[in-house]
């Protein structure tokens, strides 16, 4: 346990250190926005990992409804929580970029609003798991997650479907989109580093979920034996 804790803390701190160095010192300064554009190297990878986690949650929830296995339920719970953490960073770094660039913290445009709704959906999912009573909590949560995931493609497509204040897609946004090669190099490295950090969180959180499940079962057995 001590070894696992040390390795994970060192790994996550190293990933944060490398991504900060690349974003703050290596990436070139953007012509129009200046240094504040460097928030992009944390903002977009955080959003990507959040989407990835919500996709894992969707798949794990579907598998749980089909197989009713404790492992898929644990993975669904873990991925939703990790996704909410990354989505929280996305929603905080966005306004911190918007204030100096747009002059406002927030606007109710399609991308921002659908992302906030996405965050609220998965916070509701976690609240449901935490507070729902009865034996059907996991089934309800899995069904909720499958419908909740419908917002992910809407968030992704919102800047393509609607004219928004949010910038157009930088990658895969058509002829006028794209990144300077030096910027793209930093961006893709940060994307990979954040993905690895997300995997570390997911593995640890899944392990915790399974340990909690085993502890609950042990408590139930102890109660049955009339000891605890």
């Amino acid at each position, binding site marked *: *346990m001590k070894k696992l*804790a040390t390795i*994970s*803390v060192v790994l*996550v*701190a190293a990933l*944060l250190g490398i991504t*900060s160095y690349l*974003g*703050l010192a290596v990436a070139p300064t953007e012509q129009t*926005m*200046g*240094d*504040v554009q*460097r*928030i992009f190297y*944390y*903002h977009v990878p*955080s959003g990507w990992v959040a989407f990835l986690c919500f996709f894992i949650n969707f798949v794990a929830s579907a598998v749980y409804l089909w197989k009713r296995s404790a492992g898929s339920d644990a993975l669904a719970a873990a991925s939703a929580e990790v996704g909410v*953490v990354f989505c*929280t*960073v996305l929603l*905080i*770094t966005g306004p*911190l*970029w918007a*204030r*100096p*660039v747009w002059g406002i913290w927030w606007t109710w445009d399609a991308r921002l609003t659908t992302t906030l709704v996405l965050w609220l959906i998965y916070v509701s999912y976690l609240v449901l798991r935490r507070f729902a009573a009865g034996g059907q909590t996991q089934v309800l949560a899995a069904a909720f997650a499958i419908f909740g995931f419908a917002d992910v493609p809407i968030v992704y497509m919102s800047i393509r479907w609607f004219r928004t204040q949010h910038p157009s897609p930088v990658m895969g946004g058509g002829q006028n989109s794209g990144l300077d090669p030096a910027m793209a190099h930093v961006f893709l490295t940060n994307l990979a580093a954040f993905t690895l*950090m997300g995997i*570390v*969180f997911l593995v*640890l*959180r899944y*392990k*915790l979920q399974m*340990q*909690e499940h*085993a*502890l609950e079962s*042990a*408590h139930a*057995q*102890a109660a*049955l*034996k*009339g*000891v*605890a």
Partner: protein
Amino acid sequence: MNGIVFLKAAYAVSWIIYLGYLGRILLRMKKVAAEREELDRTIPRNAAPATLKRSAV
């Protein structure tokens, strides 16, 4: 206001959230492990269920 302040704030908040979350997971793991150890000490894993014993009749 200078954009550098917002840039530093964005990176600092991200560090705090990610490291804080990692710390929270590790603390919860430690707590669960301790609770499991305590439970195992209280009741041996192969103890027979007291309430479900069959009568000798």
